[in-house]
């Protein structure tokens, strides 16, 4: 097992991810896929302050992630891959790259145009449709904020 968690979470490296997931899953490396952060030294520094001592962190662009994704799957390290938006997830998944993978929806918070589906999950209509398209293409997507919480498949989010 190389990627032990693939998560969409607006806050990226934060308490719930570090304490709830990274420590419990004995993660060796956190990979943040985000064009903006990958290009910003000070933002990388800020996020690194939240990385626990047992793990390290990498910040890569979507293009680099697409190029390296296959090698991540073969690593002996235990990886967490984080993106902060459905839009980034969608770009990463282009061409079926994530088909067969399981994606965890963590915190996506309230914003104009978004509807509440779970206490920690707000999605716009476009975001939900894009996630449904990915599921139809072969990606497994479910919401779960913490390892001990109930997993909610994307298909059951709509009332």
């Amino acid at each position, binding site marked *: 097992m190389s990627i032990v968690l693939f998560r969409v979470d607006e*806050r990226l*490296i*934060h*308490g719930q991810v*570090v*304490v709830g997931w990274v420590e419990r899953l004995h993660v060796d490396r956190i990979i943040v896929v985000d064009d903006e952060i990958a290009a910003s030294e000070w933002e990388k520094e800020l996020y690194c302050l939240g990385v626990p001592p047992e793990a390290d962190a990498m910040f890569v662009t979507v293009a680099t992630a697409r190029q390296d994704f296959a090698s991540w799957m073969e690593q002996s390290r235990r990886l967490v891959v984080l993106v902060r938006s459905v839009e980034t997830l969608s770009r990463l998944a282009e061409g079926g790259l994530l088909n067969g993978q399981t994606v965890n929806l963590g915190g996506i*918070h*309230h*914003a104009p145009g978004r509807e509440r589906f779970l*206490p920690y999950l707000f999605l716009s209509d476009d975001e939900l449709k894009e996630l449904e398209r990915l599921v139809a293409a072969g990606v497994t997507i479910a919401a779960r904020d913490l390892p001990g919480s109930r997993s909610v498949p994307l298909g059951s989010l709509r009332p």
Partner: protein
Amino acid sequence: MNAFVSRCAARQNTWKRIMSENIRGLIVAHSSLAAGMTEAVRQIAGLEDDVLQPLSNEGKGPAGLISAVTEAVGDAPVVIFTDLSSGSCAFAARKIAIDRPQTGIVCGVNLPVLLDFVFHRDLPLPELVDRLVDKGRVGICGTCAEEDSRVDRALSG
């Protein structure tokens, strides 16, 4: 009003003026922790209204939390206290501090830290932050008596 009362009143007004110009505190934490800590400090030490303010990250995304913290700190010198050093609260505080002068950050806040803050807000900000970090560390201690020693004491008592 006699001279003594008058002097005391003047002194009190001066004290209030100085205190109001002192560093303010903002606790940013998960769930209702900040509100609970603020209330605990109020009960133990008493508080003027603007000395310490609680803010929860609940329901706030990164942008929403940064916006709420920015609004709460205003323009005054401030120490932002956060619960975890690796959490979204600390991240928001650090991001704001990059462009905001007179901003101290203390992560891993506990009650001894907050009580010390209330009584030393007149210190220069860097000195205050160093002091608070030390107080926080000293404020944590622990004991774990071995079961055997308790048994021994019980028998000898």
